[in-house]
């Protein structure tokens, strides 16, 4: 198989290497020049972003594939390289853009925090891994990057490792993700056994049987459920909010969690119709669970996390029901407005939190900031509007695209419209709380300009001009998104949903109710309970059982055998020591004693020689006299 493709593009390795360099240099510089790390990392990422922009411009139309042999298993050569398509370069650019903005934002947000070097190092590493995942042409490399992304997510969730909650959340995210990764690994195995290659360009050209496609698709679905927090595996994401807010923006909203959706988009051709149906069900379930979760929360980051889950579900359902392009478009817009929402939330948290205390994240206590933080609130509101799908925003356009695709299917259309209503409801709820003039915050801090700048950029990106030249249809700047003709009734429906949603929200949340829902209504509660009852408890019981069996039976047998063995050894040892060694030792001791005795006679002292001689003389005399007397 010819794996070598020579569409060399020097910008790609440079773009990938720069964050990696940032990772290494940050660790290296960290101990002594900690203050320099943020600037250096940001500068390196800016350079990387420039590279990705160049790549984006270069590959706005065609695809390009470059691969060199990585290693070989027998005769099979595993290549490594990149596959640049308009979609992948767009994703790459999005990743670097968001990452760059988050870097800039972090300069202000993380100022004065401990472990800055570590933080920026892992940010850089994440960017590298995510970039690799996006451009990789080989699924094995993709898998590696997938894992590295998970690793950096783990490190960044647990950045404040002094807090037990952060450590637990990191561990949880890591373990749940690994559960999903099993799916990807099995999918790769299936592909390897069925198709004989993991090269994506090769796979696209291959015709696989429906069964294989179903199996692979379900496995990939499991993987993306883990990574993108889809229905059964979604409860790790709200916990992951224990990490720094910029991390949440970058990883747990805009890019990493979107990696699952991106993989779904990329591997859409590997999904059979059955698998797509399952994916649609999963996506819609997630959509409603996430929406419901967002409505039950008061923690602004948790609201956004559930919103993310919900939006990811929408994307999955969109990819499964509508088209990969439509899903990807929503991914694209979601990246901007959700990152903007998170950064805005971070700025607000920063504004109301007191130094040395736990950060204030409750929306009920975050009102009254209009006078002091007008720009932040405006940007936040713009992003929230984009999330709710207000006209003139990019979110309106991408959601419109999804609805257009399913407009012929009344059930799915109804479900999506309902979901849209829920989204509007919680977005409006959040904004109402935050915009309320009630001065709840005791003291506020000014938000530095360096934090406001990315926020502003993202909120601008959340407007329709971020996606399209037209505010009403996708007349995309971006070659990847198909221009879809607008259907007026769809737009009317969505506008009606929006109005109703905002109206219901106004009705419900105008007075800022502070009552907390009972825990049983929070999805987190029963998801955790489900996890406990379905996975943890049986696993613990099984292990207890095996432990018991191990102790009782295996160890019993082993102990009995070893006691017998030891007893035998003692007997043998005794025989060896006493009976066999005994006479040898006796002989040696006798020889040693005799030697010592005779040696003591030859001690080099004249007088002792003389004493022995005299003794001998005396004995001889006595003996002689005795002989004479008895003659």
């Amino acid at each position, binding site marked *: 198989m010819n794996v070598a493709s020579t569409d060399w593009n020097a910008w790609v390795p440079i773009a990938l290497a720069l964050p990696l360099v940032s990772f290494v240099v940050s660790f290296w510089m960290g101990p002594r020049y900690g203050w320099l790390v943020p600037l250096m990392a940001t500068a390196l990422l800016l350079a990387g972003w420039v590279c990705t922009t160049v790549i984006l411009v270069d590959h706005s139309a065609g695809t390009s594939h470059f691969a060199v042999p990585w290693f070989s298993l027998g005769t099979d050569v595993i290549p490594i390289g990149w596959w640049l398509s308009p979609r992948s370069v767009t994703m790459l650019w999005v990743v670097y853009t968001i990452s760059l903005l988050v870097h800039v934002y972090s300069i202000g947000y993380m100022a004065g925090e401990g472990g800055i070097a570590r933080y920026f190092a892992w940010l850089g590493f994440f960017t590298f891994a995510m970039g690799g995942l996006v451009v990789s042409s080989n699924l094995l490399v993709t898998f590696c990057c997938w894992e590295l992304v998970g690793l950096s997510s783990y490190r960044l969730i647990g950045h404040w490792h002094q807090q037990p909650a952060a450590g637990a959340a990191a561990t949880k995210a890591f373990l749940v993700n690994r559960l999903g990764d099993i799916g990807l690994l099995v999918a790769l195995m299936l592909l390897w056994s069925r198709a004989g290659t993991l090269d994506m360009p090769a796979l696209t050209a291959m015709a696989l049987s429906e069964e294989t496609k179903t199996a692979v698709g379900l496995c990939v679905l499991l993987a993306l459920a883990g990574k993108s927090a889809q229905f059964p595996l979604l409860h790790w994401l709200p916990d992951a909010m224990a990490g720094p807010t910029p991390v949440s923006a970058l990883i747990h909203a805009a890019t990493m969690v979107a990696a699952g959706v991106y993989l779904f988009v990329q591997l859409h051709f590997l999904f059979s119709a059955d698998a797509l149906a399952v994916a649609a069900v999963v996506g819609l379930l997630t959509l409603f669970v996430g929406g419901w979760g967002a409505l039950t929360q008061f923690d602004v980051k948790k609201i956004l996390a559930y919103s993310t889950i919900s939006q990811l579900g929408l994307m999955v359902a969109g990819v499964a029901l509508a088209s990969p392009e439509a899903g990807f478009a929503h991914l694209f817009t979601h990246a901007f407005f959700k990152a903007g929402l998170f950064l805005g939330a971070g700025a607000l948290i920063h504004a109301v939190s007191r130094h040395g205390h736990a950060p204030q994240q409750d929306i009920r206590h975050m009102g009254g900031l209009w006078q002091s933080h007008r720009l932040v609130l405006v940007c936040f509101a713009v992003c929230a509007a984009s999330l709710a799908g207000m006209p003139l925003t990019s979110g309106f356009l991408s959601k419109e695209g999804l609805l257009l695709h399913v407009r012929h299917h009344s059930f799915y259309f109804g479900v999506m419209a309902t979901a849209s209503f829920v989204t509007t409801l919680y977005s409006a709820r959040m904004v109402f709380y935050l915009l309320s003039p009630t001065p709840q915050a005791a003291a506020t801090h000014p938000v530095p300009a360096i934090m406001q700048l990315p926020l502003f950029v993202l909120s601008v990106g959340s407007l329709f001009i971020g996606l399209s030249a037209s505010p009403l249809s996708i007349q995309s700047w971006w070659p990847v998104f198909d221009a879809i003709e607008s259907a007026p009734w769809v737009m009317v429906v969505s506008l009606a949903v929006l109005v109703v949603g905002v109206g219901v929200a106004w009705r419900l949340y105008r007075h800022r109710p502070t009552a907390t829902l009972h825990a049983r209504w929070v999805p987190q509660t029963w998801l955790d309970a489900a996890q406990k009852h379905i996975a943890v408890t049986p696993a613990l019981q099984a292990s207890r059982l095996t432990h018991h069996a191990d102790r009782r039976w295996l160890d019993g047998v082993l102990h009995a055998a070893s006691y017998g063995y030891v007893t035998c050894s003692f007997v043998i040892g005794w025989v060896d020591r006493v009976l066999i060694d005994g006479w040898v030792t006796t002989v040696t001791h006798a020889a040693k004693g005799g030697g010592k005795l005779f040696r003591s006679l030859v001690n080099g002292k004249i*007088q*002792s020689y003389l004493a022995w001689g005299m003794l001998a003389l005396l004995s001889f*005399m*006595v003996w002689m006299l005795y002989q004479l007397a008895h003659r």
Partner: protein
Amino acid sequence: MSAADYFFYGWCLVMVAGLWAMAVSKKLIHAALGLLSCLVALAGIYALLSAELLAVIQLMVYAGGVLVLILFGIMLTGRLSDKPMRIESRNVAVGSVIAAGLFITLIVFVGPAFLSVTSTGSPGSLRTLSLALFSEYTLAFELAGVLLLISLIAGAVIASSRQS
């Protein structure tokens, strides 16, 4: 008890005192003095036994020669430290037992054989002994002279500090 007996026991006392000094004294020089008294007493006893020449030789050679040599040895080997040299004894018990065993064996088993013997005295005058030395024992006498010469040279060579 004749005058000779009184002299004999007197010399015996002197000798026992000397032996005692040698056996138990803590100072070398006292031991040497003890040896001197032993040797002088022996010379006296020789004289009492009519061995006049031997008495004189004993005085001349032993008291005047050997003892002085020993005194020289004491003086030359005792100079390393300022304090007077102390004699230490070791294995006193073993030595005592052997010496006492020897003494008792000799006295109890060998001594009775001489109970009846009494010294007759005057066996050899100076003249007869000298004549015997120069006639009957000439060879031995000459050999003794050679031996003396050899030991003189040997002593000088060994003691000389010149070493290769």
